[in-house]
């Protein structure tokens, strides 16, 4: 589903990733770990073309991300649901609207948008918050809104960047269990986290970034 071959990324002569190689199979759930600043977010950004790789080749499904036409980028991004580290919730829009936007950009009819948004809000246990302003919600609730937006269109790939960032341990476990449930329905998921507690005992593959590349692989 996703493959990196010899991918490198530099920011102004400063190397973030060098010669990264790995593959993630369809339907798999994989963790990417490493200390803060290791390049986890950068690696995810390369997948949805928020950043351009400087070397190597990245394949996502039927897209060659490293040689993609600019006009094809929206199509690529619609195959991918992203749980952004900084949430990126839209100001001035309700929880409902924040989730619905993922379907609006796909041009779905209003009726279908409504039923799918309420379904997904139920699934992440925030159905009762549909009309709230996200700003008024707790960190854990906001995180669920972001996850709901990432999964509502049922994309093939879900990328979660520190999805338990500032959450208390119990809420963090809830979120990971939620992502595992979503994975069972068929989505390929990559979770980037610096928190080893999250993948311990999951039985999922864990890729560790160290010294700008994938330094090792283990089972969580």
């Amino acid at each position, binding site marked *: 589903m996703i493959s990196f071959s010899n991918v490198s990324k530099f920011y102004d002569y400063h190397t973030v990733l060098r010669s990264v190689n790995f593959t993630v199979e369809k339907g798999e759930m994989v963790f990417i770990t490493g200390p803060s600043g290791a390049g986890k977010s950068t690696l995810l950004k390369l997948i*949805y*073309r*928020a950043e351009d790789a400087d070397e190597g080749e990245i394949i996502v499904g039927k897209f060659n991300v490293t040689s993609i036409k*600019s*006009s094809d*980028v*929206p*199509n*690529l*991004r*619609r195959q*991918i649901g*992203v749980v*952004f580290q900084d949430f*990126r919730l*839209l*100001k001035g829009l309700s929880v409902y609207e924040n989730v619905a*936007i*993922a379907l*609006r*950009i*796909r*041009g779905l009819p*209003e009726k279908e948008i409504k039923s799918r948004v309420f379904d997904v809000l139920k699934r992440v246990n925030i159905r009762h918050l549909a009309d709230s302003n996200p700003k008024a919600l707790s960190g854990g609730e906001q995180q669920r809104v972001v996850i709901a*937006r990432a999964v509502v269109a049922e994309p093939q790939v879900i990328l979660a960047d520190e999805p338990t960032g500032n959450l208390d341990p119990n809420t963090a476990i809830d979120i990971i269990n939620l992502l595992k449930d979503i994975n069972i329905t068929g989505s390929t998921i990559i979770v980037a986290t610096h928190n080893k507690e999250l993948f311990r005992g999951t039985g999922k593959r864990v890729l560790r970034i160290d010294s700008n590349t994938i330094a090792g692989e283990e089972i969580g």
Partner: protein
Amino acid sequence: MYIGYALKTALKGMYQEKWINLLSAFTVASSLFIVLLIGLILFNIELFAGTIHERYGLVVFLKDNLSELETQSVITEIHKKEGVISARYISKEDALKEIKDKLKDVSYVFEGLDTNPLSASIELRLKKDFITPEKVKTLSKNIKEISGVDEVFSAEKIAETIDYFNRSLSNMSLIVLIALISGVIFVIYSTVKILFYRRKEEIETVKLLGATRAFIRLPFLIEGATIGFIGGLISTAATLVIYFAITYRLSNVFPILQNLVFPNEVIVVFPIVGLILGVLGAFVAVGKLRF
């Protein structure tokens, strides 16, 4: 499709910036109003210039003391000329009577007049396709060569003056029109840009979610189109008001103003012109949208 959503987003954005949008629409309206006035003035001058020969035709003045036979032969000669529809003979006496009729309020000017100072004349009407400056000129020259003809008066001089005036006005207005229309596009561009910057963060996010350029642009194009359309509508309405004021009120004083024409098409075309300029301005304001 997402047109409904784009409309809602556009309306919401315009409501949030309602004063700027309103101000912008009025600025656009005043520019388009001037564009429309200049256009109408040029259009009417052009119309008038086109009918000037039809109105006045040619007037042939005859030499004094021609016999009836000589007069008749001049008329026959003139009739033979290409382009002449009709020739009306006005004798010296008729001419005097006509003038006396017109000036009957001031009839004392004719007191003590014992000779008739006027010339006999022939008024010609010309065929429509014959009314071009060159053809009228040659015709006058040919008629002047007929013996018995003293002078040929054509509206040529008036036409040339109007033509010259019209041409210099057109050149000037072209510059003014270009400036005004660029101004309109710029005003709409600036207004849409404000909304665009306001939504910059949101746009970055929807780009990452997979929104297409069309999805992102549409609300802004709708905003620009709305401002342009409203501006076009207001300017058309204002021009119509001015037009009726002139034709109904001022025409008492200057009867020629009664002939002013306001083409009906303008009412439909001009708001659409505003709309197109608005879309143009908005398109430039949103820019390339890189992914």
